[in-house]
């Protein structure tokens, strides 16, 4: 009973925050030379939104959704997300192994490079990629890489590369830090003393131990990927899911569609969070059993 009440309160709180945040422009009215707080407009907006949320079966609210190609664009955006996530994880794991078996001088060089990329803004990377592709086209005259999403075409290669560039460095930085911490652990020293090779210690023992941590880090990677995809779709003019969302924000207007679109956008985050939750429970259970 208590738990049910708690879930109910949570639901109400989330609803309240949704209504408050999306009606904030109604609350803050632009006055003559200052911003005024206008409770009346705000309240009427909230009421109409509540009505819209409760009468979700009304076909009028679904007219707008039918005008956009929802399924196809969503599939495209999620494909980009999954591809870049795979690319990021694979590359960063491989590179981190290479870093750790290379001599200390090279390792420090790698570290400073990775730390440098922490400060690079994502827009700079996106525009650099765009510039690179365009100059490649201009100098050779051949269209190696498709950039823009005009005439219903949907490029994959360039967006995936652009989107996953910075998250790759983010994950690599995290892996380097965690592995360095882990290398001082007793079990690693024991493994070295037994004569197990570097790569095997890394691949079998250390990676197994940092796995739960890495999953929780993957959440922020997905987060960065999502916002990068948003920028890339806008800059390359690709007709992906975020562009549909943009249409909803500008023309669509009603809160039900907005909430549904936003929820669809957060599904990957939810998936990765639940994976992390199950894993941490499993790990905790194991620790309890071993003690």
């Amino acid at each position, binding site marked *: 009973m208590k738990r049910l009440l708690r879930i109910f309160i949570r639901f109400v709180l989330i609803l309240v925050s949704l209504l408050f945040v*999306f009606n904030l422009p109604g609350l803050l009215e632009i006055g003559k030379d*200052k911003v005024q707080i206008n409770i009346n407009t705000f309240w009427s907006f909230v009421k109409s939104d509540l009505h819209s949320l409760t009468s979700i079966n009304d076909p009028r609210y679904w007219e707008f959704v039918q005008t956009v190609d929802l399924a196809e664009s969503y599939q495209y955006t999620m494909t980009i997300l999954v591809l870049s996530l795979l690319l990021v994880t694979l590359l960063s794991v491989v590179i981190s192994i290479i870093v750790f078996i290379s001599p200390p001088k090279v390792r420090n060089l790698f570290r400073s490079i990775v730390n440098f990329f922490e400060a690079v*803004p994502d827009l700079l990377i996106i525009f650099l990629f765009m510039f690179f592709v365009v100059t490649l086209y201009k100098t050779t005259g051949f269209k190696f890489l498709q950039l823009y999403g005009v005439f219903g075409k949907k490029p994959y290669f360039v967006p995936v590369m652009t989107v996953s560039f910075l998250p790759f460095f983010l994950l690599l930085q995290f892996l380097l830090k965690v592995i360095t911490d882990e290398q001082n652990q007793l079990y690693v020293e024991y493994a070295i003393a037994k004569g197990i090779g570097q790569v095997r210690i890394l691949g079998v023992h250390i990676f197994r131990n940092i796995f739960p941590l890495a999953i929780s880090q993957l959440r922020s990677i997905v987060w960065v990927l999502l916002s990068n995809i948003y920028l890339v779709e806008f800059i390359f003019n690709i007709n992906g899911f975020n562009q549909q969302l943009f249409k909803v924000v500008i023309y669509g207007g009603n809160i039900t569609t907005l909430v549904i679109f936003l929820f669809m956008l957060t599904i990957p*985050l939810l998936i990765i969070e639940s994976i992390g939750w199950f894993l941490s429970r499993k790990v905790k259970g194991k620790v309890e059993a071993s003690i």
Partner: protein
Amino acid sequence: MRNFQKTILGSTFLLILLIVSLLYPYYGPKDFNHKVIMTNEQGDVIGRAPFPPSEQHLLGTDRNGEDMHWLLLYGAKFTLITAIGVAFIRVLFGGALGFFISIWVPCLKSYVQDLFIIFRYIPSVLLGLILMIPIVGDFNDVPVSSIVIYQIIILVFIGIPSVTMFTSDITGELLKTTFVQSSYLMGAGKLHIIRRHLWPHIRSYGILFVVQQIISTLHITMQLGLFGMFLGGRSRAGIMGYDEPPKPATLSNEWAGLIGQNFNEFLRAPWTIFTPIMAYFIVIVVVNMIKKELEQNLTGREALKWNRKRKNVRQDPMKRLTSTDFQMVDVRNVEK
């Protein structure tokens, strides 16, 4: 060791940039060397803006024929003041809220977390865009000051949840430490604990938060600028060759606005985009350097304090006792 070399260096750089930008009206050309058509000695037209970077135009010009480097210098003050101001307000309000929650009503923390759940799942660019479009998304004849206030409120609003949650977490951790616990046991009140035990820690965390928030504000203003949400709104009269319908131009020439305004020119004049982004990049690198050093100081402080304590513990050598320090006691009197 704790040192602030990089912090001092970085802040000096930002301060100089700010002052140079504030003093722009006293030395810079008012129209940013506005020149659309270039002619040779005979008066023939040999070029049309945008011009690429050259000796005459250090960083090139935009479509209006205005020099990018003058524009950047002029706009720097708006970008920097907004970023720093918004970061301060975020930390002030968010920090106070988080502090309050952790100390007085820790039971409400999970509910506040639920209230802020939107901010955990929706990228902040998107949120900023959704909230700014109704006001800034079109040309309107509202005074600039109210638009700026509105934008600053939104920018602050977007960042407060993360600051609140961080502060609340850190205060919770500090409250669990042994020195606070023993102080509680010895009967200290909440105000005493805040003043003596929490404040010195919270203070240095606060500075670190401000620096972090400056970076995040710089990022978000840059991205919002790309979508045309310029600081200070859009101005109708602006760009050569786009008279009907008017193309939005930035009113203040702040850096994000320059990016958004020249976005369509990218293929013809990539320098108009790259120079503001590089300017952003340099500022972010400098702020990031400061942040790194502050973080290092924070984590290194525990070790440092330990060293200092050990130095203080060393006592004076024991005084040698002489026979005058002793006193004969009458044994029989004591027994009685």
